């Protein structure tokens, strides 16, 4: 349980004059659910985008599973085993739920152009396997009855689930969820909490960015708090909750003592 999966060292990111992240260092252990919280504009999503290669950091580095993670190349990051979802859902809208997940298998399949044109045995076998696995994945997140529905016609909660299924299809070691509970009602949030627990139980480490403090505190093994691009706390939820800096960041200085 205590093997380090991801170590971030002094990550910094500037946008022009805005210092979005300042020397952020975190350690995520294998098999845990790690929460990243902070007030609006604290730099949570920026951290996410730097980690997953959408942005290039101005300083610092990530050590993932023992070796340095390249920056600025999203598809390589996914290949190394970090999958992500988006704060504002980004599905392939014109594709069915099933096809979305099948597309997620792109990375872990290797049929060549020649194999596809000749439909050789490897390609046919792989295609069958991908279809089967995609169905399994839909069942895993609980939306297999919507397999042939266009993803844009799914309900909001189902779209969130589908995005998680698609990310899991890339067979990640670390699943990074960007505000998965945003806009969900209490029932949906409860179901989501269960799903995330299951995912962790099945051996995938989870990095969770979330506004819903109750969800984070109830679900996460450890939590880090960002404020104005700096890490102000990192510990188990119970300790973080009592940290005066955290209380000040969320509620203002008069509540801090």
């Amino acid at each position: 349980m205590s093997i380090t999966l991801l170590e971030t060292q002094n990550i910094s990111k500037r946008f022009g004059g805005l210092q979005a992240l300042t020397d952020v260092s975190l350690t995520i252990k294998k098999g845990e659910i790690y929460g990243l919280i902070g007030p609006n504009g604290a730099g949570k999503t920026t951290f996410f985008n730097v980690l997953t290669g959408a942005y290039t950091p101005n300083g610092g580095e990530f050590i993932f599973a023992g070796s340095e993670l390249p920056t600025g190349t999203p598809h390589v990051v996914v290949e190394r085993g970090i999958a992500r979802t988006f704060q504002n859902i980004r599905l392939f809208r014109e594709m069915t739920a099933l096809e979305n997940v099948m597309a997620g298998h792109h990375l872990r399949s290797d049929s060549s152009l020649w194999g596809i044109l000749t439909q050789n045995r490897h390609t046919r076998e792989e295609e069958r396997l991908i279809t089967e696995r995609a169905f399994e994945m839909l069942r895993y997140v609980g939306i297999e009855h919507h397999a042939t529905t266009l993803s844009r016609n799914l309900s909001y909660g189902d779209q969130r689930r589908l995005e998680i299924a698609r990310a899991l299809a890339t067979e990640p070691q670390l699943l990074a969820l960007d505000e998965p509970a945003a806009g969900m009602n209490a029932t949906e949030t409860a179901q989501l909490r269960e799903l995330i627990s299951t995912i962790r139980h099945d051996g995938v480490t989870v990095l969770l960015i979330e506004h819903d403090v109750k969800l984070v505190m109830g679900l996460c093994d450890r939590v880090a708090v960002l404020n104005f691009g700096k890490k102000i706390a990192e510990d188990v939820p119970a300790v973080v909750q009592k940290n005066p800096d955290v209380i000040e960041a969320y509620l203002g200085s008069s509540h801090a003592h």
Partner: protein
Amino acid sequence: MNELAVAIPWLGSRNPKAARSVVLALMLIAPLIAALCGNTWVRILDFALLYVMLALGLNLVVGFAGLLDLGYIAFYAVGAYTWAFLASPHFGLHLPFWLVLPAGAGFAALAGLILGAPVLRLRGDYLAIVTLGFGEIVRIFMNNLNYPINITNGPQGVNMLDSLNLFGWDVSRHIPITDNFKINSLVMFYYVFLLFVVGSVIVIRRLQVSRIGRGWAAIRDDELAAKAIGINTRNMKLLAFAMGATFGGVAGGLFGSFQGFVSPESFSLMESIAILTMVVFGGMGNLGGVIIGAIALSLLPEILRSVALPVQHAIFGHVILDPEVLRMLLLSLAMILMMLIRPAGMLPAHARYSRPELASAGKGKQ
């Protein structure tokens, strides 16, 4: 093929098997019917098939990968000129078709890569502008590369191209059956082109339902999300450009061999736009739609041309509107109506990725 069959009104939804055989029969006897009305009509059908190939290739780039390409005709030109260089008296080379056609496809694919590499970061309007420029550059090159060294023979073009010679069988020669009955070469060209079209459809179909096709669709729907699931968008886009261009190159080679003559004016911007119109008109992303669009838009103007003159003569006694003017007028009208009534094309691509056979495959496992 299935899309075409299902699209037949009434019969398509009731008896798909019968509808499919109707489509097949139509494809096979079309040139014979056309031959009854004169050889011009067979020639028009031949060209329609070339346009089908072009539209299929362009659909791969625009409909599948979502990369708007307004210079697609350039690849057609590359294929045609490859044939002109390698199989005509121009350079004195007379290579066989099984060398020239792949060479044309290869050069076209290379041209696709050359176009694709600098435009990887562009999308939508910006991409359209650059590809439009590319198409024009190729045409202008063909037009001007006759000095200081004569490569393309300039605006005069290259003529006396070798015709299609399939392992000793010259397609352009009439086949005499009896003394006063012979099978016209135009009809034979039709069947040869039909084979190529069927081959293209099979290839494109296989690509569409593969990991590559899904990668393209992902890029089309959301490029950022495609990157986030590990799709190498650079390679997939280049592949789309190259594969699309390949079909253009093959069609170009066939065009050269069929026409026996190539010149830069065959590859104008209007042609690019015409092919894009076929794709949009028929239904972007739907193979059957694209085929219907290409056939409809290459046949309609010709039918119109042959009908408009006599009709005007009969009604007014003289010709008021030149068919050429009328053609553009009615075509634009058709496009506008189309966009109003069926914005997604004649056969929209709704069901593109909802494959029922997959659904049943999964249910069996539950």
